């Protein structure tokens, strides 16, 4: 990388009028999104392919990104879903035995804009103090006023159905670590139907590793169609954005309540909360990282968790018999719920990790046990 940069300059303008200058190391053009930061020091490939980042411009707080390139294995979906990507210093010469391409090539292959040279710590502090903001990231740097106008016109995430942009539109079978055409045959093992709101592959990998038959269905699939698949359990997947506008999924879940064991993760957890009558709200700047301590109320132990959410279920709005199973040690927010009468439980964080620690893997085992208890 020469001292005098040859990449085109890029500009990030936030809705409050503040702006940050950088260079486009990948792609050209202009994107709008909610600007959020992720504090993980590794795992950029997983973040890029995590459908939950739909509608967001992601800032990595770790300054050196691209170090180990991009490989064929660590995909959390088939593509990149976030809108734009901001780092301090992009690394163009990766080193890792699994690396197949550079981050720049990966972003460009998926038509995404990557910008570096920004004081990402300053930007992070801005978001921390002012809250997640709408932003516009552009290689058209001369018209700041125009950019500001466009970002202010952009509606943001609240009230928007982001799921529709990322969830599968056709059902499929997850087998041998990949999507296969769905064929419903006789059951020879526990069958899990995954309501796909933007599912991360690692949830599917975990279920398969537990010898489950994994069927993934679109987010608009009706309850009766799900039940027709004769599932032993239903997984409510993660996904992007605000849960409240996803009323169709909430209705589906409400119709499934009590019928089959249910396990919700992240957006799935929020949708489950809405389905039982609770409400959600938006966090100031959300939790995006791999070091959030979560207290398991039953055991008293702390799990270091992977998190990626901007919305949260409000505990006080839930039915009285809901059991709070996990809370966030840092800010006390709700992290896990159990609905004993409904054979359902859910967590706000990501037991499937990818990226992040394996501390909460046991939840998949819990789901398996729950399914076995109620099977047949």
């Amino acid at each position, binding site marked *: 990388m020469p001292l005098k940069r040859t990449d085109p300059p890029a500009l990030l303008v936030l809705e409050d009028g503040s702006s940050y200058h950088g260079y486009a190391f990948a792609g050209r053009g202009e994107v709008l999104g909610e600007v959020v930061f992720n*504090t993980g020091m590794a795992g950029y490939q997983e973040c890029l392919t995590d459908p939950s980042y739909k509608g967001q411009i992601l800032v990595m707080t770790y300054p050196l990104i691209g170090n180990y390139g991009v490989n064929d294995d660590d995909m959390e979906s088939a593509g990149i879903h976030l809108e734009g990507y901001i780092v301090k210093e992009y690394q163009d010469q990766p*080193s890792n035995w699994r690396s197949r391409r550079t981050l720049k090539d990966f972003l460009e292959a998926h038509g995404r804009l990557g910008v570096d040279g920004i004081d990402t710590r300053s930007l992070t502090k801005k978001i921390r103090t002012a809250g997640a903001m709408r932003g516009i990231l552009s290689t058209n740097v001369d018209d700041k006023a125009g950019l500001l106008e466009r970002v202010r016109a952009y509606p943001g995430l609240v009230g928007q159905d982001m799921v529709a942009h990322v969830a599968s539109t056709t059902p499929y079978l997850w087998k041998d670590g990949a999507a296969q055409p769905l064929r419903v045959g006789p059951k020879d093992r526990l069958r899990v139907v995954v309501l796909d709101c933007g599912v991360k592959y690692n949830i599917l990998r975990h279920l398969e590793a537990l010898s489950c038959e994994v069927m993934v269905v679109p987010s608009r699939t009706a309850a009766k169609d799900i039940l027709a698949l004769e599932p032993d359990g239903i997984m409510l997947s993660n996904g992007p954005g605000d849960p409240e506008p996803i009323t169709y999924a909430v209705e589906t879940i409400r119709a499934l309540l009590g019928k089959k064991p249910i396990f919700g993760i992240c957006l799935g957890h929020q949708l489950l909360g809405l389905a039982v009558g609770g409400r959600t709200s938006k966090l100031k700047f959300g939790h995006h990282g791999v070091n959030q301590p979560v207290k398991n109320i039953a055991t008293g132990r702390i799990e270091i968790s992977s998190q990626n959410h901007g919305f949260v279920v409000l505990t006080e709005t839930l039915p009285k018999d809901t059991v709070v199973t996990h809370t966030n040690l840092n800010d006390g927010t709700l992290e896990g719920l159990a609905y004993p009468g409904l054979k359902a439980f859910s967590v706000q964080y990501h037991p499937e990790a990818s990226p992040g620690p394996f501390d909460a893997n046991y939840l998949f085992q819990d789901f398996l046990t729950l399914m076995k208890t109620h099977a047949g």
Partner: protein
Amino acid sequence: MPKRTDLKKILIIGSGPIVISQACEFDYSGAQACKSLKEEGYEVVLVNSNPATIMTDPNLADRTYIEPITKEALTKIIAKERPCALLPTLGGQTGLNTAVEVAEAGVLDEYGVEMIGATLDVIHKAEDRERFRHAMETIGLRVPRSGFARSMDEAYQVSAGIGFPVIIRPSFTLGGIGGGVAYNPEDLERQAKAGLDASMITEIMIEESVIGWKEYELEVMRDKADNVVIICSIENLDPMGVHTGDSITVAPAQTLTDIEYQQMRQAAILIMRAIGVETGGSNVQFALNPANGDLVVIEMNPRVSRSSALASKATGFPIAKIAAKLACGYTLDEIPNDITKETYASFEPTIDYCVVKVPRWTFEKFPEVQDLLTTSMKSVGETMAIGRTFKEALQKAVRSLEIGRFGLGELNPEQTAEHKKLIVSLITTPNSKRLFALAEAMRMGFDLQSLNHMSHIDPWFLTQIKQIVDAEVELKEHGPASVLLAEAKKLGFADRRLAELWGKTEDEIRTWRYAEDIIPVYKLVDTCAAEFEAYTPYYYSSYEAEDESRPSEKPKVVILGGGPNRIGQGIEFDYCCVHASFALKDLGYESIMVNSNPETVSTDYDISDKLFFEPLTLEDVLHIIRSEKPLGVIVQFGGQTPLNLAKGLAAAGVPILGTSPDAIDRAEDRERFQEIVDKLNLKQPQSAITFSAEKAVDIAERIGYPVMVRPSYVLGGRSMEIIYDTPTLAEFMVRVLEAFPDNAILIDKFLEDAIEVDVDAISDGSMTVIGGIMEHIEEAGIHSGDSACVLPPVTLAPELIRTLQDQTRMIAAELKVVGLMNIQFAIKDGVVYVLEVNPRASRTVPFVSKAIGKPLAQLATKVMLGESLAELGLTEQVWPAHVSVKESVFPFSRFPNANVVLGPEMRSTGEVMGIDWSFATAYAKAQMATGFQLPLSGTVFISVHDRHKERIVALARRFADLGFSIMATKGTAACLKNGGVQALPVAKVSEGRPHIVDRIKNGEVQLIINTSIGRRPTLDAYHIRQSAIRYNIPYTTTIEASHATAEAIKALQHNQWDVAALQDFFR
């Protein structure tokens, strides 16, 4: 789980003297632990023989024992104090080993003392390699294939089964002493033997070599509830094969994907459980095959380590403090995170910068030793730098090293074939210059792939270095330009380096840069990558957009620290800096610490009001001053490092507190000092100064041999020698003019057989009070940092002492010293000579402070800020009733070929203190504290230089009277016989077998007295001293120290020594 209330009193063991692989980091961890436990209301008992530690300050623990860290001393302390628990995990390997010894001796059971933090079984499981391997296999982790050998035969068998190359690792040693790599049977012969010798249990592990694999370390903490968190991941730039203490290391890991890192994390957690570390911090080392990601576990330490200190400084997470709290029952989720205040210790720090640690070696002190890095650690210190990019951090770290390099500049501008060959060998075989050789090779056109094949260094790191080299080319080719200047600063380029590249001066670059407003901002170290608001004032500089430092309006003072430890400048100076900070707080000033040494207490973020983790160069310090606008800077306490900056700072208009830079110069500049000597009518050994070899010979012949020669402005007696003849002098001049082409060479008449005395004094500008007069045990000519000394003096007549006091006061008054001053005197035939005046804190300040019970550095700080000694209540010299002895500790066992000889060039790494009511016992304790077990009976072997022959009869008689048999080389034996002392003659090595080394090996010798003259002992003396070290036989190399040893042995023979807490000496 709340803290335990069944424990009242907890014993902490320190790590003793600074040695290679155990340095300030254990003062940092121990001091944190003391504070942390006291905060919880526990009574803390501490043992540490190192007086230069903050932890041994009498207010840190309730009962502070400056006693040898041995089973015997610890047993006495336990019997006296009856602690409820022993916390062995904070005092390094020494603390752990000594705890194991007392536990195995049944002492803990006898007195009902519980081991907390790590139990005996846990320690054994982690340290005993067979048990460790078994434990790893049960959790499905691989360790390199290996086998154990307790003899050379077994060593051959085991290595045959594994195949070369193999790694030799002795069981139960410190820092991998005696370890090494064997590429063939010949290497094995040598390495296995050394390893068996080095092992406390005569056992080595022979291990599959994973040389060239990538090396990683994780710092892990676990609590009683089985919560486990990873504090920091560290990736070594130097791959496996180089001791991690000798590796350039980087935090966080750079080249692992998340899943690869998480697998390592999970493995570390499983290891903590399998080994059973109940509470506290541990570190786990992994090796990873860069071709396919295969992971093997190398080792784990069930205690805090050098890496824990690094991880604490790298992340802001105080590992030792938390470890102490966990040991007394808390869980991680109950302990608040000081930095964020709103979160808890139960989380994993995430950082938004890059940290680079570079070791500091001192091979120049041991010219006989090859500059080669292996699995046995050789560096004496380290520096850490923080940057927003790796390149920035690396370049900051390089200039923090203080090795005369301000970047990855040329080793040799002429690219000859010979130089190319040298560069290749510097890259293929790890050594202290490898980083610079890599940059040089890139300039020569080597591609990264071949450099990777030669060095096994990961291509990612090579790419970063290449980017710096490429930038240099671009800078040079393009010439000066503002836009390049701004970009170069972002890559961490020092003004000095830019000046070199652009043919300008550093001042010109700085002036230009300031005019262009290209100045760094300060970013916060906050454990959480800005996710939470941080309250900790811990900063590093970077060329970024936002400045987070909010300079206050309070009056403030900047303290400049000492940078990386090296021989001649270490923990003693950090101790003084920390005390300065305490004093400033007392006086209500804001204290601002600047340092680059991650091992130290001074770089603990809660010592000063503000901490800048920055290189101690003029450029970096001026930036801080520009931002903070302090009322002054303290340069007296950090050793030579800040003193070297004083002139530049003063020139830039920065107020220097205390003694003026001009006074410093008057003391350091030969000619100017001569004027003072003349004016005050003092005596100095005859001396002269020259820049040429011929003149040197003339001078020496004029003033008469022996002469003491050295380059000016060099600390620690670097390259200083006593020379007895012209050929040696000529040879010396060639060597030293090559190493220090710009320095004048000082030639002094050497005062043979003179008594040397160190005086530390404090002055407020009008009154001077002597802190302490220290009489050296060894004669003048041995560096004061290498001599043993006693306070108060034992043989000096009252009128001599008065003379020393008077002269000290006169010099202080003449120099208008405000603060501390150290003078070295020599006394020959009743005449006092001034050897050296240092108007700054000396290495002995902590020792004197402990000996007299006055915090001299704190008092000096207050004096510098205008308080008078009268106001501070120190108007008279303190004459303690007890006796304090300081003894030096040497790294000879680390450098197998080094000449074991004391001389004017300092070579010790650390010191211990013995304190008691008599000289003999205090001296005996000091010897024990260095690791010598003085024999009470047996055979003394004596072999002395001809010059000493007349003085040995009395000495030998003393030992004979104490019941020892005397063994001597033929010449010495004959001389003794003439004097009426019977001695068994023994052959020198050069005289055929069985010779003295055979006798030593056979255990027939309990004490060795072997003196010599000059820098290099004879070959025979060399063999004798090597065996003394190898077989750990106590030895002395001077007549004076031998007499002191006899006295100590006599005391030990006659009475049972006792231990006493510092608090009791000053009751």
